[in-house]
């Protein structure tokens, strides 16, 4: 596949190259903060990629997606608390727990349409939030410190910041690629068709419910992986990871970057978090700008940054 030389494509290649070369820059410039910032960006980008699958491609507006960050994170945290540090146990548990939760919530929620679906996913995520807050053994409201990161075999060492960054980045790139293949497969087209016109899909013979459900489970599982990474990154988990406003943050990333495009969520995560850093340096009340900005994006730039970049191609006269 040869991609044309457009403003958008150049921007994306530059972004990807920048992400890959970042630790090199950090080594040279000695700016460790940037590495920390971008590790966080990459992990949240992974969560946003998973949300984009159901939101951008599937048209399922889930306001409870942050719950999987919590589930994946707490799987790692709880097992670590019990003395089980092996990543080979923790991470599969994180994925399985997320998948199971997604299956349950999806099965109940996907029967509902539109705003009901939004509310139900929100409510179930809150249930999970309260459920986890109730575990005194695992810190309750205060959260749980993780004293040792997930252990794999030598030479993998998640405590090495550069290594951890590359592992997260590799998982992010792999996920973007896998999702891209997924949305262009028969399954992906079925899900996209259901987003575009569910009635018509059923009229031509698709049992759309089951495809949406599987899509929902895949997205939840992938987000659970992001949760496991986040737990390792922070060396800490708390119920606030799954509060519904965190789901809102993820949605902002996806919409800002460009819904339904393969690199949109990554662009959105970078844009949002870099903007957050930049603006909070200027004023601590930067969210006053972010709020209306989001509204403006919704009203006038529905395709997000990726959409604007693609329009730039038309302007340049390609």
């Amino acid at each position: 596949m040869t991609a044309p030389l457009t403003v958008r494509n150049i921007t994306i290649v530059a972004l990807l190259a920048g992400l890959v070369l970042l630790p090199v820059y950090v080594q040279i410039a000695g700016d460790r903060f940037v590495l920390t910032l971008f590790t966080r960006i990459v992990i949240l980008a992974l969560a946003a990629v998973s949300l984009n699958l159901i939101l951008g491609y599937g048209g399922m507006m889930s306001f409870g997606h942050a719950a999987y960050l919590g589930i994946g994170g707490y799987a790692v945290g709880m097992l670590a608390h019990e003395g089980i540090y092996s990543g080979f146990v923790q991470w599969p548990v994180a994925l399985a727990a997320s998948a199971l939760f997604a299956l349950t919530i999806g099965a109940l929620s996907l029967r509902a349409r539109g705003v009901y679906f939004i509310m139900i996913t929100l409510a179930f995520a809150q249930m999970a939030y309260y459920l986890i807050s109730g575990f005194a053994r695992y810190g309750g409201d205060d959260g749980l410190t993780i004293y040792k990161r997930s252990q794999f075999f030598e030479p993998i060492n998640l405590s090495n910041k550069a290594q951890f960054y590359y592992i997260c980045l590799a998982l992010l790139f792999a996920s973007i690629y896998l999702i891209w293949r997924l949305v262009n497969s028969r399954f992906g087209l079925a899900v996209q068709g259901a987003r575009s016109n569910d009635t018509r899909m059923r009229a031509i013979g698709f049992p759309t419910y089951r495809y949406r459900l599987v899509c929902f489970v895949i997205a939840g599982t992938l987000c659970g992986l992001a949760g496991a990474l986040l737990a390792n990154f922070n060396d800490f988990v708390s119920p606030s990871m799954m509060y519904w406003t965190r789901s809102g943050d993820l949605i902002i990333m996806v919409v800002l970057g460009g819904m339904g495009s393969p690199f949109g969520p990554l662009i959105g995560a970078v844009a949002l978090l870099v903007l957050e850093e930049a603006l909070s340096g200027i004023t601590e009340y930067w969210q006053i700008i972010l709020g209306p900005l989001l509204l403006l994006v919704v009203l006038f730039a529905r395709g997000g940054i990726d959409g604007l970049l693609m329009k730039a191609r038309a302007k340049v006269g390609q």
Partner: protein
Amino acid sequence: MTLFIEQCLNGLQFGLLLFLLAAGLTLVFGIMDLVNLAHGSLYMVGAYFAATLAAWTGSFVLGAVLALIATLVVGMAVEVIAMRRLYGRDHLDHVLGTFGLILFFDESVRLIWGPAGLSLPLPPWLNTSVQILPGVQYSAYRLAIIVVTLVVAAFLYVLVMRTRIGMLIRAGASNREMVGALGVNIKLLYTLVFGLGAVLAGLAGLMQAPILTVQIGMGENILILAFVITVIGGIGSIRGALVAALLVGFIDTLGRSYLPDLLRMVLSQEAAATAAPALSSMLIYLLMAVVLVVKPEGLFSASHK
């Protein structure tokens, strides 16, 4: 037994307060087909205005009335500036846009009033207890809340069912274009309805302020409850909102009172102490899940679409 009566009244009071909030939400949902996440922000704004204006004027009641007017103004301004452009769009756009408004309101409040919360003290004549039954005392203020919300509920009923405006509201809920074609100023109608919702939210906010809290983020916490009530009751149905709000109010209050004792029977003291509030919070969502499985459109769905 007295404790039980008191808890029941608390449940009633909480339910009615939630009803105020949910009624505004379901009205706007049902008539303008608008999902307004920033409804909780209006609730917060009402409480903040009341706390400030009561302190400024020295009178609780005067402060409350002024706060309602201020909230009405803010509500209508929001409608004209932001909400108008969202009508007719996808619900996703509503959710995103109004979520942006939440961020804006939270930060604006933080900017104006600072990050610490405020308090709204009760005047002495409300800060007493009243004997409602032989041997049973109950907070005068909570009784006042019950009375006020019942009056407002009655007013809403009369407004929607018996007046011309109410008829327009109900007609607008079933067929927007027709009402517009009849020469009714739909834009003004929508602004007024939204303003009404804002006032209801603000009233709920300021009334609970002396009991619970005035702080940033209070809107988000209660917003979910309001949405759950709207879903359980049925979008667009005020009657449904009332029934669902009372249900939620009772279950939440009685659950929080009696669940710790129930849990202590099966769990250790420590485990029960943390689990109880968590489980009580979950009860409402379990109720919603059950309703959705049994009757997905809600108990009293008014929508014929």
